[in-house]
């Protein structure tokens, strides 16, 4: 089910004018503070009626200002994780979590309270009231409450911003599972490029109330000229298949024939994965290094060099495994005498699991190893 959104709204000195589709999977709204992300989400949830607009999930119209359709919030079934937690202060944590359960109207619960509280680590808080929770605890309860509401669409406004790295790492796989199950569209607001790279199937970037880029996350991220959060966050996605689990704990992948090593994954050999290689983490060498700790070396040909204003450049390299980006200095470009067509080697320090892994969700064994920077333990040679 595709969520299609077209909105125009005006505040005193801010104008929102966006139109985009959120296809099945997880769509990240990415943009600076004040760019209009929350406003879009509120309109989808039915908490803000835009001046003009049309919002639909598949054929199901939620809002159409021209035809005078405006479904009230409670009939939109939008599970909304608010930027501010908005817990009900008079209810216990448990009552907050199960609040939506009495309004299921025949839906069968797909998750249990226990599952969610375990994942979020809030089981010990069930009898407490929100006023006694820490910031991060509130955020987790708010997330759990939305997840337990069996929504038709999930709206998450920076759900993990208040959480520590370890906690994020525990929760991210849940979003991946949800995304890969593909039952409901997920609109996810984030400031964090690592979260984007890890979760997004579709990426929408907003700036001052307008869409500046939109499309499949993989395509956008492989474009050397696209780095909405700065060149540091550039990085391409490649596809690979699990070849074997080796005895020292590493997993060998086959990326278009080239071997890639990752710390032990739990999926079965043959599983296809999508991986993210941050441009930052790629070094280039004209000859294949033989005596270094780098396990992952991909031979390739320079396709494009994107030179920025600063001392850096992003080099796009076509390898056996696919398009890889490398972020190096202009000095290195000159020293290595790189130009389109030059053959060279990409030395990859770390590789991360990217969104849309073809497997039916990430297995739990993997999750603790995945860190918020989306780089699992880096294999060296």
């Amino acid at each position: 089910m595709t969520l299609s959104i077209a909105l125009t709204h005006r505040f005193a000195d801010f104008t929102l004018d966006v139109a985009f589709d959120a296809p099945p999977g997880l769509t990240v709204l990415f943009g600076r503070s004040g760019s209009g992300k929350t406003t879009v989400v509120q309109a989808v949830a039915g908490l803000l009626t835009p001046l003009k607009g049309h919002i639909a999930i598949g054929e199901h119209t939620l809002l159409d200002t021209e035809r005078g359709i405006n479904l009230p919030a409670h009939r939109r079934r939008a599970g909304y994780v608010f930027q501010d937690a908005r817990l009900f202060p008079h209810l216990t944590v448990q009552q907050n979590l199960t609040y939506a359960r009495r309004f299921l109207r025949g839906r069968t619960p797909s998750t249990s309270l226990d599952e969610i509280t375990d994942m979020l680590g809030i089981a010990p808080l069930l009898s407490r009231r929100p006023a006694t929770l820490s910031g991060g605890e509130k955020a987790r309860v708010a997330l759990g409450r939305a997840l337990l509401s069996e929504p038709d669409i999930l709206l998450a406004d920076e759900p993990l911003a208040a959480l520590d790295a370890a906690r994020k790492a525990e929760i991210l796989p849940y979003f991946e599972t949800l995304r890969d199950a593909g039952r409901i569209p997920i609109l996810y607001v984030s400031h964090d490029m690592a979260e984007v790279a890890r979760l997004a199937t579709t990426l929408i970037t907003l700036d001052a109330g307008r869409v500046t880029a939109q499309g499949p996350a993989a395509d956008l991220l492989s474009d050397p000229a696209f780095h909405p959060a700065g060149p540091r966050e550039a990085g391409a996605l490649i596809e690979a298949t699990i070849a074997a689990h080796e005895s020292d704990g590493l997993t060998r992948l086959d990326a278009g024939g080239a071997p890639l090593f990752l710390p032990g994954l739990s999926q079965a050999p043959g599983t296809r994965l999508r991986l993210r290689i941050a441009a930052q983490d790629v070094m280039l060498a004209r000859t294949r290094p033989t005596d270094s700790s780098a396990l992952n070396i991909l031979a390739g040909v320079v396709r494009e060099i994107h030179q920025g204003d600063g001392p850096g450049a992003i080099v796009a390299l076509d390898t056996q495994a696919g398009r890889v980006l490398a972020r190096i200095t202009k000095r290195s470009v000159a020293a290595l005498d790189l130009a389109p067509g030059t053959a060279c080697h990409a030395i990859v320090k770390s590789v991360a699991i990217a969104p849309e892994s073809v497997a039916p969700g990430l297995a739990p064994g993997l999750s603790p190893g995945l860190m918020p920077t989306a780089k699992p333990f880096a294999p060296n040679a």
Partner: protein
Amino acid sequence: MSWLSPDGLTALTLSLKVAGWATAIGLPLALAVAYALARLRFPGRGLLNIAVHMPLIMPPVVTGYLLLLGFGPQGPLGRVFHDVFGLTFAFRWTGAALAAGVMGFPFMVRAIRLSLEAVDPRLEQAAATLGAPRFQVFRTITLPMIVPGLLAGAVLAFAKGMGEFGATITFVSNIPGQTQTLPLAIDLALETPGGEGQALRLALLSLTIAAAALVLSEWLSRRVAARIAGQTTAKVEEAAQI
């Protein structure tokens, strides 16, 4: 009870009944009106607001007189209630309760409205996104959050019901056992030369009852507040002592 005449005792139980019913029936109505005034925009909202305040602005005798005209045996509303619900107000304790309810109504509405306006609409929005229809939002979110206002309104209305005199005597006159509430008994005592002692005793009685209601409402209100603030029961108990 040697110091309390049997009439005094009757007046006391009657007063409790009258003030209790006035509060119990008035509260949901006041809630509805307060909700309408606080949240809805409709034609006649201003008039409703003025009407609610009328018993406060008018001398009680006028209110009583208007009640007599409206709800008396010959009054149009009185007839409707009699014919439709079999409910008679004239010269009965029900009329005293009506008068007490009407006189206490503005306070209930105000207290509830103040509480309603302090409820964070974002919490109600959150409930809506979780699938709660408007009425359920009201029942599960709004209502529990305005408990302090409801309690304040109830205690004001109850106190007023215990003290209401002018409208009551004008509307349902002073019939011992039927409409002779404590304030009427007190007034009667005061009208009689040398009746001050009896008046004082009755007044103290009235005060004691109302004070008990007050303490109860404070305690309940504190409990609710402490719950929201997340204090433990032990602390609540402590805080509730006055």
